[in-house]
């Protein structure tokens, strides 16, 4: 016999299903009047600090078809590299920046976020991570939410030293790089197949 570890087990994940919008973006699917605005629809308020950017992309399945029923959530630091979170102990993040956004993909599987470019954040063992945005994707047919990250094409030097990108085989790193064009950053997510996005177990 042996002592118990007194640990609970994490509740198993189940797919969000095809009607996830009812719960996460009710106004998008016509359930109006319960909540005035869907959560995560606006990430920035007037007076936000930093460089305004728009992140645009599509989510595609293994046949290249749009995943038109998914929900994409993002989480990122503010322009100074601080998270707007009670678990952030390094300082107070920009009060005009939520850091978190949620978007229901449209018929083309497209999502869009109006946000700011994040600052750099410390990584493990004294490293510094390159600017990045964390993504989480759920949908029908996704049994457990998929975590990935978007880095920036205009941060080549920082990306080279990023402790997370260094864990990824070089041939697959481009799947994690958002392509910067002016104020827009393009980032498509391929769930499977050619150019399959790198997903993380974090």
């Amino acid at each position: 016999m042996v002592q118990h570890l007194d640990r609970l087990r994490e509740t198993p994940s189940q797919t969000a299903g095809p009607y996830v919008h009812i719960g996460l973006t009710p106004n998008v699917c016509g359930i109006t009047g319960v909540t005035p605005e869907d959560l995560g629809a606006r990430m920035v308020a007037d007076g936000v600090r930093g460089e305004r950017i728009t992140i645009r992309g599509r989510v595609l399945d293994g046949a290249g078809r749009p995943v038109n029923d998914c929900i994409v959530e993002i989480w990122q630091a503010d322009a100074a590299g601080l998270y707007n979170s009670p678990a952030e102990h390094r300082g107070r993040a920009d009060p005009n920046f939520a850091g978190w956004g949620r978007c229901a993909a449209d018929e083309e599987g497209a999502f869009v976020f109006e946000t700011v470019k994040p600052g750099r954040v410390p990584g493990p063992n004294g490293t510094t991570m390159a600017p990045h945005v964390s993504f989480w994707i759920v949908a029908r047919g996704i049994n457990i939410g998929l975590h990935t990250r978007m880095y920036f094409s205009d941060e080549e030097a920082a990306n080279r030293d990023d402790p997370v990108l260094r864990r990824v085989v070089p041939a697959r790193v481009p799947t994690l790089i958002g392509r910067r064009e002016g104020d827009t950053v393009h980032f498509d997510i391929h769930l499977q197949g050619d150019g399959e996005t790198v997903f993380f177990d974090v």
Partner: protein
Amino acid sequence: MDKRLSNLASEAAPFMARDRGRHPPAYAPGYKSTILRAPREALVSFESTLSEKTGPAFGHNIIGALDNDLIRNFAKPGEAAIGERIIVHGRVLDENGRPVPDVLVEYWQANAGGRYRHKREGYLAPLDPNFGGFGRSLTDSEGRYWFRTIRPGAYPWPNGVNDWRPAHIHFSVFGSGFAQRLITQMYFEGDPMIPQCPIVRTIADPAAVAQLVAALDMANAVPMDCRAYKFDIVLRGRRSTFFENRPEGN
């Protein structure tokens, strides 16, 4: 206090590794929608960084008075959703057994006939004009949430020729860190449809399936009004940081 000597799992501590064997695999061909949506490459693992140890928080100001009353929150004034009236309550805990306070729990479900209020839903059961199917709560200081609703109906879905979902309520839960983000489904004690469901069957471990089945809780029923079901949700725990991971001599 030197944090390296603290045996507390602080809010900024890394998460224990996720036990992937307890969750359904991405590729589960009995649930056909996974076939083209499951990544085929291995996940790249790394210990949570600040980007996963932190997560968004929501204030009580976002919660409306009827947000946790699905019987009334979409109903016309003076009317109510049709169905078996139930209360669903429980706690959000972490793997260390600690309550997780002040986190957002969102839930959605079909109506009593098994029909969702969604533009892509085509099941022939009728909509209930007084039922939207959406609600949300923030957990209290002891991690508790509760809501009132009607028991959802089972419904057929296009997978096999005759596949039906057991009665269920979908849950989305935030923790204190983005790595804890979880979506799951709650089933009802005693439902014979549970073991037949291809989505339930994506989970291999019977003990893990049991964790998704809410217990009938007659002690918390409201006499002459509604019955109650208890559904606790466990999020990933943070590990204790007895010793930081540092090269010797630093």
